[in-house]
């Protein structure tokens, strides 16, 4: 920047005007990037950095060749964060906001990845701030040829984002139910799993073999309790027989009779 300032002193007329304006715009870009960095470090807005971390995980999962961001990509993404986050946190808004950013780079340079990054960040941020439905991003392509190829890349990135979110949900639910589940007796748990396996196995096995269940998917609502009741009845029946036929019980009965007589 100091070299630029020195250079400005050597210019005059329209050149000086252009160079001064470019320098001002460049400074503004640097400021926006710094603002983004500060925001990522700010513990008052945890959703911003959380969404940023999840976006990076999703990008890596969706594209194994994505090892690190190129400078223009990460600068583009981080510069946009404060303005996008300001929709949730109005205190982040400034009078300089309202930019329409045009990301220009040579073909094959990684523009799409940069766009995907910011779309994924917004998608995660939306979930974290509790948005249930609505649009996150519009994507338009100038060439029909590009549409399918780019849509495929975007779909992979979004699928990776969904996978990251699913892993998180499973981990959170797992942690939440770990303690209550550990109090359930092991045999009861095995019994419940067995009932579900039998009921779902019957349903999908028969469907796969060409059968059509009455009530379609709702048949499961009958199958699961029916299998559970049938299995419980069988367990009760065989347990009673097992108890009466046990040699140990016979010995006890004999001893009791001997004691009473």
């Amino acid at each position, binding site marked *: 920047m100091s070299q630029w300032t020195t250079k400005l002193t050597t210019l005059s007329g329209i050149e000086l005007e252009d160079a001064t304006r470019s320098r001002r715009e460049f400074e503004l870009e640097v400021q926006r990037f710094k603002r983004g960095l500060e925001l990522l470090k700010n513990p008052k807005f945890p959703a911003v950095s959380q969404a940023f971390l999840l976006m990076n995980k999703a990008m890596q999962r969706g594209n194994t060749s994505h090892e690190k961001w190129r400078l223009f990509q990460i600068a583009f993404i981080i510069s946009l964060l404060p303005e996008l986050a300001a929709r949730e946190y109005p205190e982040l808004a400034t009078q300089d906001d309202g930019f329409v950013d045009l990301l220009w780079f040579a073909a094959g340079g990684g523009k799409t990845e940069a766009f995907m990054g910011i779309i994924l960040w917004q998608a995660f941020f939306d979930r974290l701030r509790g948005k249930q439905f609505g649009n996150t991003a519009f994507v338009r392509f100038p060439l029909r040829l590009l549409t399918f190829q780019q849509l495929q890349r975007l779909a992979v990135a979004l699928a990776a984002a969904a996978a990251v979110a699913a892993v998180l949900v499973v981990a959170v639910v797992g942690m939440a139910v770990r303690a209550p589940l550990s109090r359930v007796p092991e045999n009861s748990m095995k019994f419940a799993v067995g009932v579900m396996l*039998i009921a779902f*196995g*019957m349903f999908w*096995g*028969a469907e*796969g*073999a*060409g*059968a*059509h*269940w*009455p009530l379609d998917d709702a*048949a499961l609502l009958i199958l699961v309790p029916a*299998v559970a009741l*049938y*299995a419980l009845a*069988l*367990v009760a029946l*065989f*347990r009673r*027989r*097992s108890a009466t*036929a*046990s040699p140990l019980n016979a010995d006890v009965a004999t001893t009791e009779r001997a004691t009473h007589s």
Partner: protein
Amino acid sequence: MIGKLRAFGAFWYDFIVGDDWLVALGVLLALAITYAASRLTDAPVWWIVVAAVAILLPHSVFRATRHRR
């Protein structure tokens, strides 16, 4: 190498057949009959699997309780 192949085979046998080959055979037969019946007739065939489970489950539970004695 032979040991690994044997372990691989044992895993799949345990996964598909389990501890009672008769139940596995019964399920396989029920599915085969369901498939054949669904191809040959328009009549409802869902009950075949239900009937198979109604027969095989007592056998399986009986076997389990007998082993515990």
